[in-house]
């Protein structure tokens, strides 16, 4: 079974045309991979579908825009994957 990172990296590569070997756990989705907001919408959809979750991107962006959190907390891939795992664990426990 593919790891969360593998699945997400494959999604980003297929949606944004970023070569798969350039995507690392330390990559920032926007800053390093040049994924724009529209492409990120597609990526979010594919992540939602792949993991049967709803990434709370709206809440994340609000927290970032209000200065409560750093965008790195959500958009560096290792952190994004941790967020996905946490949501999956919560969903599974519910």
């Amino acid at each position: 079974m593919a790891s969360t990172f593998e699945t997400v990296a494959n999604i980003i590569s297929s949606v944004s045309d970023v070569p798969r070997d350039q995507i690392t756990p330390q990559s920032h989705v926007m800053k390093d991979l040049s994924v724009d907001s529209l492409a990120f919408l597609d990526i979010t959809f594919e992540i939602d579908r792949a993991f049967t979750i709803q990434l709370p991107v709206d809440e994340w962006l609000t927290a970032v825009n209000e200065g409560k959190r750093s965008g790195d907390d959500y958009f560096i891939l290792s952190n994004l994957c941790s967020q996905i795992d946490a949501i999956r664990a919560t969903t599974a426990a519910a």
Partner: protein
Amino acid sequence: MRLEYFQMLDEIEHFDSQQAILKARAAVPAESPVFEGHFPGESLMPGVLLLEVMAQASGYLILAMNGFSRMPFFANVKSANFRSFVRPSTDLTVSVRRIHDGSGYAVMSATVERANEVVCDAQLTMRNVIFPSEALQQHVWSEGRRLGLLDSRVA
């Protein structure tokens, strides 16, 4: 339809919030300045306006489901197919279904039919945001009341 005003939907025929589906009637007018250019001597409903029909039906489904609290903006279209010409004075039925409810966005499946024949279909993504202006909110609410999707008592 009033093409020049981008008023594409005439009547909601069916809305089901549980199933997240909406069906609406969209009657292509007999005459419009749009047809003078598209095309001279061969009037055809432009594909981009058929896309707009699907986008508006998608938008009003989302609005009806969120109580007209956030504005859906057309963000993305995939797999749009225009299967036959649509001429003036054609009655169309547009059917939309929300296939994914994301955070701040929704993905929709849409089909436009003429007498049970599919003339176009697409998958659309709508980005749902706070209304950017009071004027737009009032306009959309007014249209929601016209279509019977928003309670007339709402200011």
